[in-house]
């Protein structure tokens, strides 16, 4: 093992060194830019004649040295791996090149892991050893080339910037323009992330639907992805009917909402309308602790405490309760969502104008009548929006159900039985070693697509409703 670490670490060190030298070059460019601005100004009455402060000329040179080179470095790191693999493959014997894609991938992985020093030569054949040597040579060339090109680009950038320095050059505006683009780039990352999510799940899901028809997936009543025993079997791919997962997910979410909505909503009403300021200022943060507890802790609580408790309780009543009952998972998920519902409804109720409260109370209504007949109807759209957000969170919740819900998909709406959910299936399909092209793995991405789509729709509706509601009273 130490061999692996050293070589892998070596590759990282290489990049780190290149990066550090690049940073050093950036600093040098800064000082040279500043110096040069003094130099060009000295003939024309000193630093006063400059448009910007000398340091801005320095910044300009530094940015010109850093940014293009950094971009090159990042691109290089991203594409180096696949490029090297391609080159290695092209040198391999004919019969290897004609292997199916996943076998070839395995073959190549052996070569690369040997080249990086993590496996012994004993596992490889003659051709692989040659290829590994070839790979090592290529990698070495790539490293040298990377360092040289990055430094060259940095130097060219710095020289170009330095040559442009004149007293009349508006260096500050130039630098600020670049920085504004950087700021924009940072915020555009959110769009890129969404795009990344959509593309990554969509591509794999489309490949999945090439093998399993969409209708079978959406309307199939049977989910058992673990069947692919022999590749030549006709129906070797198991069955991928999505309905039991959906029902299971909805069942657990329903149990959760039955706990969370009344408790959360009533707490919010009590705390915002009845409680003294002091009581509220102590109670609210304490209840919000529930929101800060990691979900894995809830999962542990559900699996080891609540589920056995419910099973024993059910047995003493003469009921048969599964040890991974939907009730246990849903109950604990409900506890997790209480503070979420509470703070959302609290915001919404507080947004109802006081005039409405006062008018109702002034007419002689009791507080409870005011709340039920005036406040809640007025706040209803907002509360519904908040509940939708809570539902979307329940559907996407993973750890609780992974630890406390069942694995086998059963089509039932009995909360005492074990059901499975979309998220549980994603985790079980993807955790552990998998080959990346089997329908099993791809199914996880199809489920991910459904999950993303469902929660997205819920969120968009909820956010829209809440915003409309706010605008109504602003």
């Amino acid at each position: 093992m130490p061999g692996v670490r050293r070589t892998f670490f070596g590759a990282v060190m290489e990049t780190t060194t290149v990066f550090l030298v690049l940073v050093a070059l950036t600093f040098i460019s800064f000082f040279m830019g500043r110096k040069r601005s003094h130099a060009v100004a000295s003939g024309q009455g000193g630093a006063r004649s400059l448009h910007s402060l000398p340091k801005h000329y320095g910044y300009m040179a530094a940015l010109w040295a850093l940014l293009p080179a950094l971009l090159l470095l990042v691109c290089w790191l991203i594409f180096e791996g696949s490029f090297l693999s391609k080159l290695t493959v092209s040198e391999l014997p004919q019969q290897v090149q004609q292997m199916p894609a996943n076998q070839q991938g395995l073959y190549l992985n052996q070569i690369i892991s040997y080249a990086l020093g993590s496996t012994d030569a004993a596992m490889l054949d003659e051709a692989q050893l040659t290829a590994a040597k070839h790979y090592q040579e290529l990698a070495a060339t790539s490293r040298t080339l990377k360092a040289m090109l990055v430094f060259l680009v940095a130097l060219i950038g710095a020289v170009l910037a330095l040559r442009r320095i004149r007293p009349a050059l508006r260096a500050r505006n130039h630098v600020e323009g670049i920085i504004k683009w950087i700021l924009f780039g940072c915020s555009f990352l959110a769009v890129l992330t969404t795009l990344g999510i959509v593309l990554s799940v969509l591509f794999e899901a489309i490949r999945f639907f090439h093998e399993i028809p969409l209708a079978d997936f959406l309307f199939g009543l049977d989910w058992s992805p673990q069947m692919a025993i022999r590749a030549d079997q006709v129906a070797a791919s198991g069955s991928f009917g999505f309905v039991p997962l959906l029902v299971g997910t909805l069942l657990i979410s329903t149990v959760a909402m039955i706990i969370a909505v009344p408790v959360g909503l009533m707490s919010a009403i009590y705390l915002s309308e009845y409680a003294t300021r002091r009581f509220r200022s102590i109670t609210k943060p304490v209840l919000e602790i529930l929101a800060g507890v990691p979900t894995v802790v809830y999962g542990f609580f559900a699996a080891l405490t609540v589920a056995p408790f419910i099973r024993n309780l059910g047995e003493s009543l003469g009921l048969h309760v599964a040890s991974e009952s939907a009730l246990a998972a849903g109950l604990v998920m409900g506890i997790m969502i209480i503070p979420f519902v509470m703070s959302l409804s609290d915001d919404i109720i507080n947004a109802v104008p006081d005039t409405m409260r006062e008018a109702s109370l002034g007419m002689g209504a009791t507080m409870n009548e005011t709340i039920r007949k005036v406040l809640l109807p007025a706040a209803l759209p907002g509360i519904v929006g908040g509940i939708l957000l809570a539902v979307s969170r329940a559907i996407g919740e993973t750890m609780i159900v992974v630890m406390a819900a069942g694995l086998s998909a059963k089509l039932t709406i009995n909360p005492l039985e074990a059901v499975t959910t979309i998220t549980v299936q994603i985790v079980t399909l993807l955790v552990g070693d998998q080959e990346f092209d089997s329908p099993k793995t791809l199914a996880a991405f199809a489920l991910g697509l459904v999950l993303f789509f469902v929660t997205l729709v819920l969120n968009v509706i909820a956010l829209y409703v809440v915003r409309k509601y706010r605008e109504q009273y602003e």
Partner: protein
Amino acid sequence: MNNTSKPDTFKHSEAIKASLKKRYARERRFQWYGRLAVLTGFVFLFILLFDIVSKGYPAFTQQFIKVSINLDLDQLDLPPNATQEQLFSANYLGVIKASLREMFPDVSGRKDKQQLYRLLSVGAEYNLRDRVIENPKLLGHTTDIWLRAHSESGSYLKGQVDAAMPESDRRVKDLQIGWLEELKAEGRTESRFNVAFFTNGDSREPEMAGIRVALYGSFFTLLVTFAIAFPIGVFSAVYLEEFAPRNRLTDLIEININNLAAVPSIVFGLLGLAVFINFFDLPRSAPLVGGIVLSLMTLPTIIITSRAAIQSVSPSIREAALGVGASKLQTVFHHVLPVAMPGILTGSIIGMAQALGESAPLLMIGMVAFIMDVPGGVTDPATVLPVQVYLWADSPERGFTEKTSAAIMVLMGFLIVMNALAVYLRKRFELK
């Protein structure tokens, strides 16, 4: 008209008076529902915390048994004046077994002997080895040495085993209980603070398993997360608050940020698996990828709170700076950001706390491995604290339940510290 309306009004007010009692009762009932709801929340929280703490606190102590060990050179397969290497690979297990047999000479039969050996941890021989290497003078003598107890005998010594239960239902057998009672009466058992829990990596044996690897993994992962999410989050917030023109692109960005805040965390794990591991070929199980995924997940939190902090900076500061000729960018970086910084830090700490407790996306990218070696950097395979909790929660041994709860206590301890820090910063911020 007057004559007819008077008794009518009277009748109405009578009716109202009669209904008042009902209405007030309903009012009181409603208030009680509210109190009940708040109370329910409290009760759930209390049960949760009580359950974890009561299960977890025994894991912070560990039982040791004093065994007189005869470090006989023949028994150890050692020549006189052994080298370090020979000391390292000597037959310590044999010595321990022989010493145990000597202490309980009446034990005979294979099964009984097996049970006797199971009093001590599998790791006891390494304990002994380290002691001998540290102090080679012990060789050839009989000395009393404290050795770590097996998790099952440990749990008996901690009083967690009900001896009244039928023998077949418990893992500590009657014979073992007899020996342990004997040892206890002789003062040969001791309970110590469980240092190994903080200094060991994961292990198959509950009494040797520790959270060190997970702590390092969490640290490296959070480091990456912070290094990526903090600058990008703050820059995005600055752009959206101070520079973004009102147009469709800005709207698109804002909608995206709001939606990302509500995307299930596991979907970010899918993104990490498909993009960073399969496409960019970054190492599996590494804090680097975990950190990148978590930073994408916490970015919306940081952006939204940073925007609120920047928004709350009073416009007079901006105007003053602009008035003396600062550029827009100088105004923001020299004046607005320093004032908004406590608020931004509060939001970032809350985001980091979220990232620290998150485990679902990390399962997707393979940070769910059995790892004994402490990671040395962000590209070494590692696991994180919540995932360690998940792994241990799956283990059937009773000893691991205890460990899981203890790991949860450590995790929650970190979260409480982080949140307290955030609250403190917010308080200071509000004073200004």
